[in-house]
C-alpha cells in the first residue's frame, strides 16, 4: 500500500523538524491513546489502538526507527507494528522544504505492507483508513506547531 501526499505547516522548517522528532508530540498525532517513547538514537517504541471497518480496535505494538536523517530536510521512517489482527511494516520518506511566507511543505511517501486478518477483512477500507489517520495526524501536528509558536511569541 502506498500512502503519499503533501502538507503545508504554517511555521519554519526547523521547528517542524523538532516536532517530528519529539515522541510526546508524535504520540498525540497517532490514533487511539498512543504511547511512544524514545528508546535509542532515532528509535521509538510504543503502542497504538486501531480498528479497521469490521475489525474491532485492538492494540498494536509499534516500533519506529528514523534513518537517513538530513536535518531539517529529510528522513526515512521504518515502521514495524504488530497486533492480534495482523501487522504493518514498511518505510516512509519525508521531505521538508521551506516555502514562501515562512511555511514548510512536507512531502511524504509511505510504502507499507499490511498482513494477516486486517488485510483479509479490512482491505476495502485500509487505504481510506490510512489516509484518514495520516490527515488527522498531520492536523494534530499542525495544531501542536501553532501552540508552540504561540508560546514562543
Amino acid at each position, binding site marked *: 500500500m502506498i500512502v503519499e501526499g503533501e502538507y503545508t505547516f504554517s511555521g519554519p522548517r526547523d521547528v517542524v523538524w523538532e516536532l517530528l522528532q519529539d515522541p510526546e508530540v508524535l504520540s498525540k498525532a497517532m490514533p487511539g491513546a498512543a504511547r511512544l517513547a524514545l528508546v535509542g538514537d532515532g528509535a521509538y517504541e510504543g503502542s497504538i489502538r486501531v480498528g479497521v471497518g469490521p475489525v474491532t480496535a485492538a492494540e498494536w505494538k509499534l516500533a519506529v526507527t528514523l534513518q537517513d536523517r538530513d536535518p531539517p530536510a529529510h528522513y526515512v521512517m521504518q515502521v514495524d507494528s504488530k497486533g492480534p489482527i495482523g*501487522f504493518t511494516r514498511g518505510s516512509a520518506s519525508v521531505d521538508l522544504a521551506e516555502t514562501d511566507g515562512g511555511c514548510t511543505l512536507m512531502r511524504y511517501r509511505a510504502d507499507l505492507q499490511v*498482513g*494477516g*486478518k486486517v*488485510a483479509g*477483512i479490512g*482491505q476495502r477500507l485500509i487505504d481510506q483508513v490510512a489516509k484518514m489517520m495520516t490527515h488527522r495526524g498531520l492536523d494534530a501536528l499542525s495544531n501542536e506547531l501553532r501552540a508552540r509558536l504561540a508560546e514562543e511569541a
Partner: protein
Amino acid sequence: MTRRYVGERVARNEDRRLLTGRAMFVDDVQLPGMLHVAFLRSDHAHALLRGVDVSAALERPGVVAVFTADDLGDYWQPGPLLVPPPPVEGIVFHEATQVPLAKDKVRHVGEPVAMVVAESRYVAEDALADIVVDYEPLDAVVDLEAALAPDAPLVHERFGTNMAAFVAQRHGDYDRARAAADMVISRRFLYDRGAAAAMENRVVAAQWDPLAEDLTVWDTTQAPIPIRNGLARMLGLMESQVRVVAPFVGGGFGPKIMMFYPEEVLVPWAAMRLGRPVKWTEDRQENFFATSQERGQVHDAEMALTRDGRILGVRDFFLHDCGAYDPYGLTIPINSQCTLLGPYDVPHYYSEFRAVFTNKTIVTPVRGAGRQHGVFVMERLLDIAARELGLDPVEIRRRNYLSPELFPHNFDILYQDFAPLYYDSGNYLPALETATEMIGYEGFREEQRRLREEGRYVGVGVVSYIEGTGIGPYEGARVTVDPSGRVRVATGLGTQGQGHYTAFAQIVAEALDVDVERVSVVTGDTREFGWGTGTFASRGAVVAGSACHAAAVAVRGKILAMAARVLGAAEEQIDLADGRVSVRGIPERFMTLGELARHANPLRGAVKPGTEPGLEATAYFGPDHGSTASGVHAMIVEVDPETAMVEILRYVVVHDCGRLINPQLVEGQVQGGVAHGIGNSFYEKLHFDESGQLLNASFMDYLLPTAMDVPRVEMAHMETPAPMNPLGLKGVGEAGAIPAGAAFAQAVEDALSGYGLEITEIPLSPSQLFELLQVARAASPQIQETAG
C-alpha cells in the same frame, strides 16, 4: 421383481431429519469436560520462525495447554502423500506435505503456528493475543511464472527450485499434425483461484476413553476410513481402537478430503494427552486461509486444424499452482491434462505441465478438480477456430465428436487413477442436438438481431465436456435384514448432502423388493463399516452404489435359500415380494422378512456347516476403469455494455451420467454444480497481493453467487449405460461445475459480437469485463452502442 426404485424420483429420505433440525453435525458434539481449541496462524505468507513465546498465554485463567511444534516431539511429522505421482516416463515430482504446526518457517498466511486448548473458545481466542511470535519476513512467491525465475525466493529450499513437478504426456505426434495443418490457433488462458465455500466449515472433536482404551473422532471429513487408518498409525493404536464418525456434513466439494489437515492430526492427539474431550470448529475467516483451494493455472495452448474445422492436434504447456505444499500429488493437473481432450477426436496431442509451489494456501481438488481448466482451454480454442474459419460454434463441435462406434476409446495417456485415459462409453451428438433444440439455437440468431436493434445485447454459448468418474480402488457395503423386517445398509463413504441415504436405499430396496422407506442407510462411521476410501472424484454412487447392489443381491440369495428351507419348497418356487417370501402358487405359505431373519438366527439347533447365521452380506466393488460421463451446457446471457453486468437468462444442461438412480438427486447435483460454476465464471476470485496476503477473506468481499444470479437450470437426461458396473452408473457430482466457465465466455463474447473482444481468463468479473470493453472501444472507435 415388482418394485421399481432405480430410476424413480424417490423423495430424499434424509430430508426429514435435515429439515426438522434433527440431523447431527460435528459441532453438535457436546461432551462433559470438553475443551476448546483456537489456532494461532501465521500473518505472513513467507517468514522464518525465530521463536514462539507462549508463556503469557499459559498464565491466562482458563487456558489448559498451549502447544507449538517443539511440544509435539516425535508426533511432529509431515502429513502423508495422499496420491503418489503417476508412473509417467520422465516425471519429476518433489514431495512436500503439510506439517501439523510450523517449525522454522511459515509458508502461507494462515498456516498454524501454535494451538491453544482452553475451557472455552472465548478464552482460547483471547489467549492467541498473548502469544509472541518472532518472524523474520521473507519475500513471498505468488506469481507462477515469477516463481520459476532463477532468482525467485524458494518455498522449499531443499529442492533448489519452486517447481513441484513436471509431467509431459503425448498421444500421436503433434508436430506432424501442426505441419499438415491449414490453420493453427494459439492463445494464453488463465484460470484463477477460488474458495470451495462449503456452508459448514471444518470441525473436529475427539474423545479418548481410558477404560475402553479407544478414541472416537467426529470429523467433517469426506474420507473417515483413511482418517481412522492414519490416526491409528500416527497415534500407535490399532485401527479397531479408533472410531471416526463423519455424520451429516454441510457440503464437501473436495477440500474436506485433504487428509490430514493439521487440525485433524492435533485435536485427537490433544484429547489423548489431556485426557479430556477436545473440539475445534473452524470459523469462516480461518476457512479462507486454512482450508484448501483450487484453480490457479496458466495455459499456453494451440490447436492445429484443417480448413473445414477438423482438429488435427492440440498442444498445451501449462503451469499449475500447488500452493505451499503438494499432499494431493498431481491429481488436479493430470485431470486438466486428460479432460482437455473432451468428447473430441484429437488424433495428436502433446501436453506438459509444471506444478509450482507458491506461498499460498494448499491446493487440492475442488469440485471439478482441474477438469474445468482443460474444458475451458479446449472449448475456447474451438470457439476461436470457428470464428476464424467462419463456422458456427455448434457446427465445429459436431464435426469433431468421437462417433459412437469408436467406444471404448483409449488415449495413450494416463488418467488420475494411473490407468490409460479410457472412455468406456458415450454418445455425444444426441446431447448436442437436444441442448441446441432446448435453448432454441436455430431461431436465436434472428431474436438476437431483433434485440440488438432494441439496444439489448444477448448471446448464446454451447459447450461440451466429458468427466471421468467412478474410479477405484473400491468401496464396500453390508446389507442386513433386521428381525423387525427393516433393512440396514452400511457403507464406508462419508456423505455431504448428495442423497446417499436415498440412492443406496433405492438400489437395495429394488434388489430385495422391500419398501424403500424400510431401508435405512448409515454412512461415514468406521465402526459401522471399516473398509473403503471416501467420497471424491464423482464416485460415491458408482462405486459404493455398485457395492450396495452386490451385497443386496447376495442377501437376496440368502433369503431365498433360507425361505426354501423354512417353507419347505425348492428355491426356484420362492417368491420374494413386498417384504415377504411365499411359495409360488400357495400365497398362504408365506413369512415376512423379519420372521425369516429371526429364523436365520436360531436360539436352538445348529447353524449348518457352509451356512451363516442371519440375512446379511458384505460385498465390494472395484472397477478396472472409471466411467465417462458427458454432457452439453447451453446458456443465454444478456450483457449491459455500459455497466458490464451480465445476467444469465437461461441455462440448459443435457447430461449423460449413464443409468439414473434418482433423477431428482441428479438434478440437484447439476443445479448445485452449475451454481458453483457460475460463481467460478463471474464472481468468485481470491485476490492475493504481491506479498501473498489474501485481500478478500470474507463474504463481504469474496462474492458468492446468490439465488438472484443463478437461474433454474432446464435439464434433460441422456442415459448411455456404463459397461463397467452392473447398474450402468456414471458419476455426476462435479459435472455441473465443469463447463460453466467455457459456456459463459462463449455466451458473453457472442452477446458482444462486433466488439472484437476475446475472453481468455476466468473468473471474469464485471470490472474485468468493463476493462475488456474499454480496450475494445479504444481499438475500434466505430463501435457504437445502440441506445436502449
